[in-house]
């Protein structure tokens, strides 16, 4: 009997994995047939992001925390490598195809800097940035699952008030372009990497093969996102759109918002989220992370017992993640990753402000009892 029953768990695991792959492929094909091949491709790219971020444990908030607390720069340098790889292709590509492609170019301003600082605080409180919150929610992390709806509501509210905030003082958009722009961008990335290596604790300076692989694959997907959709990888717009759609479903009138009443956003509100670029990649990230979590049998861990102040802090931080990232013209993905890799100055300012905020966020996370 034991001979017959022994292979059963392996068979069951194989069946589960085959089912996961089948459902993912079915979703991509169904969407392609119903809405168009571009949308199916974007869902596939989003799933790829989720698979890499969760499967190869590539993140943003965690590596920044590791750099601050343990002076371990590996994860941060992997981020810089990925950004550099994208920049090498994206900056010339956008220059040559300016009507079909846009960079993540945004202006620097008081609200932008403040927003990035607050985002840095909050991403350390919940230990999840824009992409990290999606990945963690997809893999069953209760803190991120709770933060996600408030992230979306905050993003909607931040966009609602965006033009008031930018009116406080905003400089013209500065984007590094051409060969000179690419050299400036790569030199900046190399300088930050050099500083991180200089500050690194002994024995932490080498990047593992896992991180190299993740950086290369993430860069390839970010470029695919740009080529397919005409815009760089982003997260926050899609989340705000979901909440805006929820608000209108409950009868809210968004005509009073200078942002949501714009033709582009009115069109997005009228069309399904499965035809919105960032919504599709967001859905894919959650789905991809879920696939990896099931694949690894990583969903059996118990939910953490946290004090009430931790859950309240998560809700507030979730809302502020969304609100602040709208004022900052993006999160770690839209501003830091895509901003820098497409030559935008605001990406660099975002990085400095959010990293400064992360120091405070690590302290607050501990005080809220979120360390478990």
């Amino acid at each position: 009997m034991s001979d017959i029953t022994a292979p059963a768990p392996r068979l069951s695991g194989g069946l589960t994995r085959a089912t996961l792959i089948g459902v993912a492929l079915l979703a991509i094909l169904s969407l392609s047939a119903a809405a168009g091949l571009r949308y199916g491709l974007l869902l596939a790219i989003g799933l790829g992001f989720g698979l890499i971020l969760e499967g190869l444990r590539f993140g943003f908030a965690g590596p920044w925390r590791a750099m601050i607390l343990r002076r371990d720069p590996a994860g941060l340098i992997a981020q810089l490598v990925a950004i550099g790889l994208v920049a090498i292709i994206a900056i010339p590509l956008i220059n040559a195809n300016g009507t079909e492609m846009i960079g993540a170019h945004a202006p620097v301003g008081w609200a932008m800097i403040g927003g990035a600082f607050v985002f840095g605080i909050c991403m350390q409180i919940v230990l999840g940035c824009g992409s990290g919150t999606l990945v963690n929610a997809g893999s069953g992390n209760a803190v991120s699952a709770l933060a996600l709806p408030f992230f979306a509501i905050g993003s909607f509210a931040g966009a609602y008030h965006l033009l008031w905030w930018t009116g406080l003082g905003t400089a013209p958009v500065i984007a590094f372009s051409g060969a000179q722009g690419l050299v400036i961008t790569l030199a900046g990335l190399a300088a930050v990497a050099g500083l991180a290596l200089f500050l690194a604790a002994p024995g932490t300076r080498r990047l593992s093969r896992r991180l190299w692989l993740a950086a290369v694959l993430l860069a390839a997907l970010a470029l695919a996102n740009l080529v397919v959709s005409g815009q760089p990888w982003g997260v926050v717009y899609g989340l705000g759109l979901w909440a805006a759609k929820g608000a209108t479903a409950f009868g809210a009138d968004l005509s009073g918002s200078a942002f949501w009443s714009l033709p582009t956003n009115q069109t997005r509100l009228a069309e399904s989220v499965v035809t919105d670029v960032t919504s599709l990649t967001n859905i894919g990230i959650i789905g991809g992370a879920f696939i990896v979590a099931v694949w690894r049998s990583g969903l059996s861990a118990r939910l953490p017992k946290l004090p009430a102040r931790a859950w309240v802090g998560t809700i507030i931080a979730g809302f502020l993640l969304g609100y602040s990232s709208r004022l900052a013209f993006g999160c770690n993905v839209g501003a830091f990753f895509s901003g820098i890799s497409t030559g935008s100055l605001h990406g660099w300012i975002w990085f400095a402000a959010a990293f400064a905020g992360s120091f405070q966020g690590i302290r607050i996370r501990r005080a809220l009892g979120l360390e478990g």
Partner: protein
Amino acid sequence: MLTRKFMAALTLTILAALFWLDLINSNKLDPFRAPAVLALGSGQTGAGAHCAALPTED
């Protein structure tokens, strides 16, 4: 005791329900109105629905 399986299932179920409702209440999908498969080389301008895009009244 609740596990991550419960949270992941809850998250996916809620999102699936919301997207299904959105699909019903939004404009119908039409693959014949779809943009070119790739933006690169399409000649079409980007929609601008991105978090870094500064909205203008123009």
